[in-house]
C-alpha cells in the first residue's frame, strides 16, 4: 500500500508539474492576460529590478520608471515609426511588397522585431530588456545598411507573383518574432547562469550590476515561450504557402532545394523547442539551446545558403 501511495503521489506531482506548462499562453489568449509571474526575490534570483508588476497602468509605470526609461521608450516608439515609414515608402517606390531581396528582407524583419518588442516593452514594462533587444536591432539594421544595402530596383521575374505578398510576408513576420525570441533566449541563459553562480555563492546577489538588472530566468523563459509560440504558426504558414507557390511556379510542392531544406530544419528545431518546453527534463537550459539552434539555422539559411549556395531561391541580390 505504501508503495502504491508513493507511486500515486509521484504521478500527481508529475501531473501538477506538467499542468503549469503553457499556462501563460492559455492566459495570454484572453483579454485579461496575466504578465509573467513576479520573480521570486529569494537568494540567487536576479529579480531585484525584474519586470514590474502589471497591476499599475502604463502611465503610472512609466512615470515611476524614471527619466532615462521615459526617454528610451519614447525614442524606441519614434524609431519604430521612422522604420515603418521607411519600409512603407520603399514599398510605394518599387510598387510591390518591400521584401524582394536580402536588404529589404532584413530591414523588414528588424522592423517586425522592433514593433514586436515595443509591444512587449509596453505590455510587460520590460525596460530592462530594452538595451539588449533594441541593441540587437541596431546591429542588424546597421549591418543591413552597410554590408548588404541594395538600391531600389525591379523584382527578379521569378518573384513577380502575388505569392510574394503571402509567403515572404509570413517568413518576414515570423523571422522578426524569432529574432526577439533569440535575444530573450540568450538572456535566459545568462540569467540562469547568474542565478546558479549566486546560489553557489560564487557571486554576491546584486554584485553584478548589469546582470542583476535583467529579469529572472523564470520570466525570460515564459516570455521566450510566448514569443516562439506566437511566431511558430506564422512560420508554419509561410512554409506551406511557399510549397503552394513552388507548385504553381515549378510544378512541385517540395524539391529539397537548399533553402526549402533549411526552412524545414528551422521548423523542426522550433517544434522541438516547443515539445522540449513541455517535457520534464528538457526544459530550461536545454530547451533554450534548441530554440537558439533554430534561430541559428534561420540565420544560416538567410546569410549563407541564400547568398553562397546556388538554388531555386537565389534572389538575395547580394554580391
Amino acid at each position, binding site marked *: 500500500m505504501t508503495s502504491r501511495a508513493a507511486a500515486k503521489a509521484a504521478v500527481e506531482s508529475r501531473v501538477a508539474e506538467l499542468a503549469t506548462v503553457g499556462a501563460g499562453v492559455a492566459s495570454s489568449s484572453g483579454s485579461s492576460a496575466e504578465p509573467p509571474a513576479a520573480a521570486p526575490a529569494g537568494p540567487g534570483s536576479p529579480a531585484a529590478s525584474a519586470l514590474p508588476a502589471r497591476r499599475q497602468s502604463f502611465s503610472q509605470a512609466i512615470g515611476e520608471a*524614471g527619466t*532615462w*526609461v521615459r526617454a528610451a521608450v519614447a525614442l524606441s516608439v519614434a524609431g*519604430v515609426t521612422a*522604420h515603418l515609414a*521607411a519600409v512603407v515608402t520603399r514599398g510605394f517606390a*518599387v510598387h510591390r511588397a518591400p521584401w524582394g531581396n536580402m536588404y529589404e528582407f532584413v530591414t523588414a524583419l528588424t522592423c517586425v522585431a522592433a514593433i514586436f518588442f515595443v509591444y512587449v516593452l509596453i505590455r510587460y514594462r520590460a525596460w530592462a530588456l*530594452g*538595451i539588449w533587444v533594441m541593441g540587437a536591432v*541596431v546591429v542588424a539594421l546597421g549591418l543591413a545598411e552597410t554590408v548588404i544595402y541594395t538600391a531600389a530596383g525591379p523584382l527578379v521575374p521569378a518573384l513577380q507573383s502575388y505569392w510574394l505578398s503571402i509567403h515572404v510576408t509570413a517568413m518576414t513576420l515570423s523571422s522578426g518574432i524569432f529574432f526577439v525570441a533569440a535575444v530573450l533566449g540568450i538572456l535566459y541563459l545568462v540569467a540562469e547562469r547568474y542565478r546558479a553562480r549566486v546560489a553557489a555563492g560564487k557571486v554576491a546577489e546584486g554584485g553584478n550590476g548589469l546582470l542583476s538588472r535583467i529579469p529572472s530566468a523564470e520570466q525570460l523563459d515564459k516570455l521566450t515561450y510566448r514569443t516562439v509560440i506566437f511566431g511558430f504558426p506564422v512560420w508554419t504558414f509561410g512554409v506551406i504557402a511557399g510549397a503552394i507557390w513552388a507548385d504553381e511556379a515549378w510544378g512541385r510542392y517540395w524539391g529539397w532545394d537548399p533553402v526549402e531544406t533549411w526552412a524545414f530544419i528551422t521548423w523542426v528545431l522550433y517544434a522541438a523547442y516547443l515539445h522540449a518546453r513541455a517535457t520534464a527534463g528538457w526544459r530550461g537550459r536545454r530547451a533554450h539551446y534548441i530554440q537558439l539552434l533554430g534561430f541559428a539555422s534561420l540565420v544560416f539559411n538567410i546569410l549563407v545558403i541564400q547568398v553562397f549556395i546556388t538554388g531555386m531561391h537565389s534572389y538575395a541580390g547580394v554580391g
Partner: protein
Amino acid sequence: MTPGLSESPTTSQKRERELVGINQGLAAVSGDFMIAALLIYSLGVLAFAGDLACGR
C-alpha cells in the same frame, strides 16, 4: 544592319525601362527614413544604457 537586331532591346535598355517604374524620389525618402530610424534606435539604446548606469 539587320532590322530585327536593331529593334530588339539590349539588356541595359531593358534594365533602364524597368527602372523607369521605380520612384527614385520616394526610394531616397525611404533611405532617409531608414537612416533616421537607425539613429533614433541608437539614441534609444543609449537611453536604456543610461537607465542601467544611472537609473533607479
